[in-house]
């Protein structure tokens, strides 16, 4: 997907489209500054809704939170500048370390598993010819479930005594773990829950699979490639752009998980078992901001997360050069 995005931008904004304009200018064609200004105005007008939305709802709050991260601010009184105190406190806060560890552990577990499961489901979908639309809808539908409802639902599905998962495991003689009450199993349980909402990733992989030229498979078969070799040397490289895109998006989403976990373990009925095990970074950030009224500290936490996500994304981008194939280059 990232590959598709880059190829498109090159096509749209690269040298080729500019050349005719340059030629026109060189030819001294009657293309006055007035017309260019009119075009520019029109362009700004078209992108204005996005620019205004970005400035007001994204860039503005980000700048405000950067300022607040250097203050002590409880929302109720004006912020007081405290220099780097909030950032120094980040280094000493044991709960922050717990929440960071929880978030990264969950991400490390969820992202590869989600990629694998979504890819398997997409491959299955790709094989289905009759009622393909029906199955695509079925796979995507769970993604539309409100996250709060997913949290409430999975409290039951994961219940160690009467939950569907442990009942299923019991059928094959496995005594399932206490997914919701044993701190060791809470995060794996949450990973299982998150697989419920994989519809978006499945659809992206499915679209990528449909885009792989049939001729390549035909050539591979002529060369005597096995099904695995076809997958490994034809399918995977050609959908690697889509895989890379979902890796980045799912990593960011996993590091910011909030709704479902807050519903399950921190809402009206705070679960003791999960007080540390499910204390994810954004949940801790929310509590600091809106329960403990440490908005300045919470802002510093938000910037730390932003920097960590940027670093992680940069590393992923760097590594992608080794395994992501872009048809456009």
């Amino acid at each position, binding site marked *: 997907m990232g590959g598709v995005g880059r190829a498109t931008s090159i096509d749209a904004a690269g040298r080729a489209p500019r050349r005719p304009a340059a030629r026109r200018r060189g030819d001294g064609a009657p293309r006055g500054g007035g017309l260019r200004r009119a075009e520019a105005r029109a362009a700004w007008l078209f992108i204005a809704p996005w620019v205004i939305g970005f400035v007001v709802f994204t860039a503005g709050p980000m700048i405000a939170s950067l300022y607040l991260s250097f203050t002590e601010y409880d929302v109720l*009184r004006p912020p007081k500048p405290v220099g780097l105190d909030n950032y120094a406190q980040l280094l000493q806060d044991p709960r922050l370390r717990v929440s960071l560890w929880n978030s990264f552990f969950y991400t490390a577990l969820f992202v590869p598993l989600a990629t694998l499961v979504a890819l398997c489901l997409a491959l299955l979908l790709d094989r289905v010819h009759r009622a393909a639309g029906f199955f695509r809808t079925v796979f995507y539908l769970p993604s539309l479930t409100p996250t709060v409802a997913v949290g409430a639902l999975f409290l039951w599905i994961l219940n160690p005594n009467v939950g569907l998962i442990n009942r299923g495991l019991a059928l094959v003689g496995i005594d399932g773990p*206490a997914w919701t009450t044993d701190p060791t199993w809470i995060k794996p349980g949450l990973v299982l829950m998150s697989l419920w909402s994989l519809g978006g990733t499945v659809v992206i992989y499915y679209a990528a699979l449909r885009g792989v030229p049939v001729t390549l498979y035909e050539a591979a078969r002529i060369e005597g490639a096995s099904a695995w070799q076809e997958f490994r040397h034809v399918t995977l490289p050609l959908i690697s752009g889509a895989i890379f895109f979902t890796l980045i998006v799912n990593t960011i989403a996993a590091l910011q998980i909030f709704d479902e976990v807050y519903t399950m373990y921190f809402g009206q009925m705070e679960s*003791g078992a999960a007080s*540390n095990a499910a204390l994810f970074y954004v949940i801790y950030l929310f509590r600091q901001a809106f329960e403990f*009224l440490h908005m300045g500290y919470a802002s510093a936490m938000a910037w730390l997360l932003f920097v960590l996500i940027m670093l992680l994304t940069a590393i992923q981008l760097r590594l992608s050069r080794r395994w992501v194939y872009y048809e456009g280059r």
Partner: protein
Amino acid sequence: MTARHRTPKLQLPSRPAVPAAAPSRLRTVWRAVALALLAVALLPAAHGQQLEASGALRVLGFGLPDEIATERVALFEESYPDVDLQLTEGSIDQQQLLTAIASGNPPDVVYLNRADLSTYATRGAVQPLGQCLQDAGMDMGQFREAAVQEVTVDGEVYGVPDFYTVIVLVLNTAALEEAGISVDEFSTSDWEQLAQWNQALTRNEDGLTRIGFDPKLPEFFPLWVRANGGQLLSDDGRTALLDSPEAVEALEFAAGLHEPAGGRAPFMAFRDTWDFFGAGNQMASDQLAAFPIEQWYVNVLSDVSPDAPIAVKAFTDRQGDPLTYATGSAWAIPTGAANPEAACAFVTTMSSPEAWERAGRARAQLRAEAGGTYTGTYTGNSVADEVIFGELVQPSGDAKFDDAVQVILSVQDAAFSIPANPAGAEFRQAWTDAVNRVLNGEQSAQEALDQAQQEAQAALDAAWEE
């Protein structure tokens, strides 16, 4: 307020609200006389004065889910027809309140958890109500002491208490009978005995099918500490006392009550399966033998499983004295409220004895029409309680629920609350996390509470300093 407020009719309670264990007839008469005198003394102050109020009044955090809410609001609207009342329904949303205050557009009245009020009061986000109460002629002496303590910061009252939730013991009499334990003898005073009863009442042969005694941790940890002679916070709200020997011993004991069930994880896994608000609840289904719980749960049981074999008793401290932990809501007026006059009229009307009486009558009538019994509303206002439980609440004919009402009333004044402090949420989080660390086997009680003490004291120091 209205003429109705100014010329109250004296209503003698039909029966004593707080019966002694075996009151003599003479004592009963004296008590009735004393209550009547108290009521006469407090009524003028309780009923208050009609205030000058008009214009729009925005209230945040209060909905109209039932007649207890609608009737009180109706009384206000009749008393102050020139006020345009605008309710933002639903329970309080901290984000909504904070952003409203931060944007300089606070509501006129906010309805919130009493435990959270001091956080706003110490930061100047809500107004002291001294002048309002004086103008309205409302005497805080009519409210329960534990409730008043929660809304008072540095001697100033910042909120008007609304509702009063206390904790009582609910017993599964069938389970006790099966184990040969007398309901009359069962109490939480002798901890060694309680641990033995817990063991005897737990059914855990082929998987856990009944919990003997649920100590309700971490939420009722303050109750266990108090029962052991300690407290979590000094009376002035400035010094955490989480690592006291009483607190450590209480946590060790209460956490140990999970052991017959196999530990915290199986205990919670089983508890999560209960149909807590349904006809197949844990008492009706014999999944629990005894637990402390907020008094409103008795109403749930009377509604959904009236035939469940239950008895209600007072939670007792280690000396055998009744003890309970009170919580509830409060009305407060944010600083910068656009219509403070109407806000004052609203908060003093909503918690007035007239408002509660009217609400109680409506509920009693509705319950009677539905063939049920009104079991009372615990208001936090002792004058209102006298009317509700002296006149409106009638024996249901079901001894266990009638006795339960008397037990709940008997512990109203044996209640304590966490002193008001500006770090309410952080303080609560510190001891909650400590209890959870012990329950999860991560730390000993001493280690967990030592850590919690440091965290809580740091939060208190920082909050008081600000």
